[in-house]
C-alpha cells in the first residue's frame, strides 16, 4: 500500500464515522483551546502587571529609610526599622552623583482640604517638580515648579478633587486650605485613573518643604531616583548607598530597591503561574487522549470482520496498524487545528471583554499544545492499532 493510499483510505474512514469523528475532534480541540486560552490569560496577567510597573516610571530606584535584612523584598522593606531619618539634605546630596538623572524626595500623608465651605480628606503628597517627570504624571492645567525649597505655597489638585471643590471648573488660581495652611491652586492633574495603588485623580501635590512643615517632620517617606539608563541602575544603587552611608556616620541604614529587581520578581512569579495553569489545561489533553484510545479500541472491535477481510485479501500487519494510526492522526491534527482556532478566538474574546488585559497566547504555548495533541493522539492509538494488526483473521471473519 502506498503512503498516499493509506492517507486517503484512513481519511475516508474518519469521514464516514461522522459523529465519532466530531466528538473526538471536539475533545481534542477543547484540550488544545484550554491550553491556548489559559496561557494567554497568564501571559496577559503578566504583561498587565509589567505595564503597570513601567507606568510608574522607568529606571526607577527607590530609597526607603531603615534597613531590613530581607533586601529586595518590598514588604520586608516597609516594616524595616528606622534608626535614622532620611532627610531633605540626604536627597539634595544625590544631585551630583553619577548615573542619577533626577530625583524626587517624597512625603505622603492624609490631610483635610477645604475651599469655599467644602471640606474633605485627601491623600497629600509633598515633593518637587521632578516627581511629575519621574512618575510620568501629566498636568491638565497650570504648572508645578517646586524644588527643594523654599517654595511658594502652591498646590496641584487631582482632577476629581478639583471638580468636587470647584464644580464650575475655575479651580486654577483659587485659594484652598490644607490643614491650617493656605495654598494657591497652581495646577490640576490630568485624569489618569489608578496605577499601582496611587490614584492621581484624588491626590493633592504640594512642595516638599510645605509638606514637611504641615506634617511637622524632618523625615522623608522615601526618595524616588531616576537613573540615566537601565544599565546604570546597579552601579547607581551602589554609588547612592555609599554616599548615604558616608552621610549617616558610616552606617548603612537605608534600603535601596531597583525597579528592575521588583519587576524580575513579579515576572518570575507570573511566569510560574502561567506554567502551572497551562499544565492544568494540558491534563484535559491527556484526558482527551484516553478518550481517543477508548474510542479506537471500540472501533477495532466493531470493525473486527473488516480487519479479518483486509487480512484475507492480503493486508500486512503494518498496513492495518498504519491505517488505524493514521485514522487517529487525522483526528488529532484536525482537533489541534480547530483547538488553535478556538483558543485564538477565546483569547480575542478575553481581550475584548477586558481591554486592559493583553491576553495574547504565546507562540510557544500554541506549539506545545499542538505537539501535545499529536503525541497524545498517536500514543493513544498505538495500543488499538497493534491490537487490530494482531487480530486472528479466522476468528475475525467467523463473526457474522
Amino acid at each position, binding site marked *: *500500500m*502506498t503512503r498516499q*493510499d493509506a492517507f486517503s*483510505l484512513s481519511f*475516508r*474512514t474518519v469521514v*464516514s464515522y461522522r459523529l465519532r469523528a466530531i466528538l473526538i475532534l471536539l475533545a481534542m480541540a477543547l484540550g488544545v483551546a484550554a491550553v491556548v486560552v489559559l496561557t494567554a490569560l497568564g501571559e496577559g496577567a503578566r504583561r498587565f502587571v509589567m505595564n503597570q510597573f513601567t507606568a510608574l516610571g522607568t529606571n526607577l530606584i527607590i530609597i526607603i529609610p531603615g534597613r531590613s535584612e530581607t533586601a529586595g523584598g518590598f514588604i520586608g522593606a516597609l516594616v524595616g526599622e528606622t534608626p535614622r531619618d532620611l532627610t531633605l539634605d540626604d536627597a539634595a546630596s544625590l544631585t551630583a552623583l553619577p548615573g542619577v538623572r533626577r530625583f524626587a524626595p517624597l512625603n505622603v500623608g492624609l490631610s483635610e482640604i477645604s475651599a469655599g465651605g467644602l471640606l474633605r480628606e485627601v491623600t497629600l503628597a509633598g515633593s518637587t517638580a521632578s516627581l511629575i517627570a519621574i512618575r510620568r504624571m501629566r498636568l491638565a492645567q497650570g504648572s508645578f515648579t517646586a524644588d527643594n525649597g523654599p517654595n511658594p505655597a502652591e498646590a496641584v489638585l487631582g482632577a476629581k478633587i478639583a471638580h468636587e471643590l470647584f464644580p464650575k471648573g475655575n479651580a486654577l488660581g483659587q485659594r484652598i486650605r490644607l490643614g491650617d495652611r493656605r495654598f494657591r491652586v497652581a495646577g490640576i492633574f490630568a485624569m489618569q485613573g489608578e496605577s499601582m495603588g496611587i490614584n492621581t485623580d484624588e491626590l493633592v501635590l504640594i512642595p516638599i518643604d510645605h509638606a514637611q512643615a504641615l506634617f511637622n517632620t524632618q523625615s522623608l517617606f522615601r526618595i524616588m531616583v531616576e537613573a540615566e539608563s537601565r544599565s546604570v541602575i546597579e552601579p547607581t544603587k551602589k554609588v547612592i548607598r555609599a554616599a548615604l552611608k558616608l552621610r549617616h556616620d558610616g552606617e548603612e541604614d537605608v534600603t535601596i530597591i531597583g525597579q528592575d529587581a521588583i519587576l524580575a520578581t513579579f515576572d518570575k512569579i507570573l511566569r510560574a503561574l502561567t506554567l502551572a495553569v497551562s499544565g492544568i489545561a494540558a491534563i484535559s489533553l491527556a484526558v482527551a487522549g484516553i478518550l481517543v484510545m477508548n474510542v479506537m479500541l471500540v472501533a477495532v472491535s466493531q470493525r473486527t*470482520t*473488516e480487519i*479479518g*477481510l*483486509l*487480512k*484475507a*485479501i*492480503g*493486508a*500486512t*500487519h*503494518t*498496513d492495518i496498524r498504519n491505517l488505524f494510526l493514521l485514522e487517529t492522526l487525522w483526528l488529532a491534527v484536525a482537533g489541534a487545528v480547530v483547538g488553535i482556532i478556538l483558543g485564538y478566538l477565546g483569547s480575542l474574546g478575553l481581550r475584548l471583554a477586558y481591554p486592559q488585559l493583553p491576553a495574547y497566547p504565546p507562540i510557544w504555548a500554541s506549539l506545545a499544545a499542538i505537539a501535545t495533541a499529536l503525541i497524545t493522539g498517536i500514543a493513544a492509538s498505538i495500543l488499538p492499532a497493534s491490537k487490530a494488526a494482531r487480530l486472528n*483473521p*479466522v476468528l475475525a*471473519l467467523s463473526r*457474522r
Partner: protein
Amino acid sequence: MIALTAISRIFTMGDQEVRALNNINLTIAPGAYVSVMGPSGSGKSTLLNLIGLLDQPTSGTYLLENIDVTSLSETDQARVRRERIGFIFQSFHLIPRLTAAENIELPLILDGIPSAERKKRVRAILQQTNLLERADHRPSELSGGQRQRVAIARATILNPAVLLADEPTGNLDHKTGAEVIALLENLHHQGTTIITVTHDREIGARAHRKIQMRDGEVVSDD
C-alpha cells in the same frame, strides 16, 4: 499446485485438544475444480483457511506452487494471499462504507498499484461481471447476488492462482446461487483453480473432484 503433507491442526480449548484436521495428505492440480463437503465441524473450513494462509498448521508441510508457504514471514504470506489466493465468503464481507467499485479496488490498493491503472482494471472487471451500473452503490444498496458478484470481482481482480469459496451460495436463493456458481465455473474455464466448501449437494456435485470430510479426515476423494 497445492500439496499438503501430513497436515494436522489442533485447537486447545481449555485443557481439551480438538483435532480439527488429522493427518491430511492432499494434492490439487492447477486448474482443478474441487468441492469439499462434510457435516459441520468436519474440518472443511479449517482446511480452507489453511490453504488460504489465514491459519497455520500445527504440523505438516504445505507447498503452494512449490513454495513452502508455512515458513514464510508474515509479510510474505500477506503478499501470497494478495497475489495468488482469492477468498469468497458466505456473508460476502464487503466494507459497508465503500462503494462496489471501491471494494473491488481494495486488493489493488494493498498491492500498491497506481490509481490510474486501478481505475482501468476495476472498470474492466465491472464490465465482465455485469456490475457497471452498480459501481457507485454501497453494499447496502445491492442485492445478495450483486454483493457476491462484487466479492468475486474483488477476489479475482489480481488474477489469483486459486479461488477459495466458503459456502458461496449459503446466503443466496437458488436462482442467484446458480448465477454465482456459473460465474465461478466461468473463471474455472479460464484456468483458475477453484475450491468450494459447501453444504449444498447439488453444488458440490458439479465439481470435477469431490472431497468428503468427517472428524478432520478425508473420507472420500473422487
